[in-house]
């Protein structure tokens, strides 16, 4: 334990001195220290630039579009015939397509996702949950193009056997498959919300002789409702923005209809069709792309805001 006797006396290495000597390199450090925050700020601004870029491109071209097609015609028109000699740009067929496909998707995703969440959070043992949850997450990681392939080559033929009037391209099949794709999202977000309900609350109900089902229905779900609803809204937002499944499996008919056995086009599929056809810059149809994209953007943006508002506003305090 004779520490220091040799330490400073006649040292081969005098650290103090060396540190003093190296002080010149401190200038570089100081420079880095000054520059780094600014550099990082610039990098962090890129995410903002991205948003600005999105808004700017969408807005400016949309503006140009509305110079050519009155905004009222766009939002109230039931006929979308962009390529015809006498083009018409009513967005309603796309809106109905988008809404109907999303509604179908949520008809699948909400009940199944919620019930899955309930099973995982309230009924499954730890072990079961730990095996099932990652498997469900695989479902969420499968690329949408694969779901599109699946919808078109597998689900549609099966549905056609069941539903005679169903067209080869229809909105029903991609809607269902989209719902399947969204199940893990709804399930996992709802499960998070339900698991964060304190155990004490469940025990309080169980101690009154409630069954698991009653605990779930009357205590857990009401307490977790904001998170659950937020998961639904995010699911809807996801369905609205989903592209490949509908593009592949619903064809490109711009029907203004509510018949789910028919082919319909969503906003996203329209964008793919028009850009896939690579509309020449400057044509009205080219600008229509941005108007549709803008509508889509606003839709999903509002949905996301709504989800965040709900989960903040209605969070139970316990």
């Amino acid at each position: 334990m004779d520490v220091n006797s040799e330490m400073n006396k006649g040292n081969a290495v005098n650290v103090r001195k060396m540190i003093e000597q190296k002080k010149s390199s401190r200038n570089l450090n100081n420079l880095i220290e000054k520059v780094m925050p600014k550099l990082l700020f610039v990098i962090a601004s890129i995410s903002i630039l991205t948003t600005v870029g999105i808004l700017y491109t969408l807005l400016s071209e949309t503006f140009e579009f509305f110079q050519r097609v009155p905004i009222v015609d766009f939002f109230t028109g039931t006929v979308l015939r962009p390529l015809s000699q006498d083009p018409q740009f009513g967005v309603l067929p796309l809106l109905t397509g988008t809404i109907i496909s999303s509604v179908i998707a949520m008809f699948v995703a909400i009940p199944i996702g919620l019930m899955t969440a309930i099973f995982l959070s309230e009924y499954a043992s730890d072990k079961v949950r730990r095996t099932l949850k990652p498997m469900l997450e695989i479902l969420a990681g499968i690329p949408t193009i694969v779901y599109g392939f699946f919808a078109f080559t597998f689900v549609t033929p099966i549905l056609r056997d069941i539903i005679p009037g169903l067209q080869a391209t229809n909105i029903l099949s991609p809607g269902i498959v989209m719902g399947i794709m969204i199940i893990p999202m709804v399930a996992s977000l709802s499960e998070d919300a339900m698991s964060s309900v304190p155990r004490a609350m469940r025990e309080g109900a169980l101690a009154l002789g409630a069954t698991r089902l009653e605990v779930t229905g009357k205590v857990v779900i009401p307490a977790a409702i904001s998170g659950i609803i937020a998961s639904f809204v995010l699911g809807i937002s996801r369905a609205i923005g989903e592209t490949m499944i509908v593009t592949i499996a619903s064809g490109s008919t711009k029907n203004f209809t509510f018949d789910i056995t028919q082919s319909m086009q969503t906003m996203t599929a329209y964008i793919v069709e028009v850009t896939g056809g690579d509309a020449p810059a400057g044509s009205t149809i080219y600008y229509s792309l941005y108007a549709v994209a803008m509508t889509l953007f606003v839709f999903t943006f509002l949905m996301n805001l709504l989800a965040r508002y709900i989960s903040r506003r209605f969070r139970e305090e316990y």
Partner: protein
Amino acid sequence: ACGGGSNEPAETDNTGSEDTTEDNAAEAAEDLDGSVVVDGSGTVYPLMSVLAEEYMINEQPNVSVEVSRSGTSAGFGKFLVPNGTDFNDASREIKDEELEEAEANGIEVQEFKVALDGLTFVIHPENDWAKELTEEELISIFSADGGVTKWSDIRPEFPDEEIKPMGPNENHGTYEFFYENILDKGDLVDGVNLQQEYSTLVNLVAEDKNAIAFFGFGYYVNNQDQIQAVNVDFGEGPVEPSLDTIAEDGDYAPFTRPVFTYLNVDMAKEKPQVLDFARYVVNNVNEFAGETGFAPLPESEIEEYNSFLDGLN
């Protein structure tokens, strides 16, 4: 025949140029690279993509030929702009407006016919009543003035079921050919199902007993197991569309149309690989026309094109 091009091919040294062409090609075969960009007609796409592939395999492995299929009209949109595509396939002739646009942009365009196509009407394989229809009956199905919504509106003995007419959408030359040359610019019937992808149409017809659609012969021959063609009676008895009947002056002639590819001449002058590919297309198109569902061109036209291309050297 080479309508539209502002630069008339020099027809004078037709024979003499034959050798030099091949010399050039042989020389060029050594070291060509770069890219050739082809877009346009979906009808022509199967033929053009096979040509492109064969060209890259057998002639110029270092040249990259991309073939897209936006449709004739959309393709022209990308072709007739500065720095646009090198070729645009078309299932109709270039329009006057499009030529004007080319001129305005200072783009010199050369037309090549590449093959002959028969506009084919297809129905479900189990549709046993509409296998033979007259030209007028067909038109009445698709025309807004036809007054036909059910099969029984055509002939009373046909089923009392709604007809589901379909076709390619307005991106496509096929649509425009139909609209301009067959409907004579009359409106299409309400509720006609227009699609971007031909494959979607094939599917729709294959799955619907009451469907009837029209598109290029090639998409029919490749799917004969799923759909059947309507034999059309042009007044002299029903004619089955086939490579023979859609050939020049065949019995299917009223519904036959040439398909084209248009070359940006400046690109061909600038980029040797574009010129070389043009030459390849012209000289080999007949070899692949049959297998992709087109009728071949007369040799005379091919010679004409060759001499034009020689003039660009």
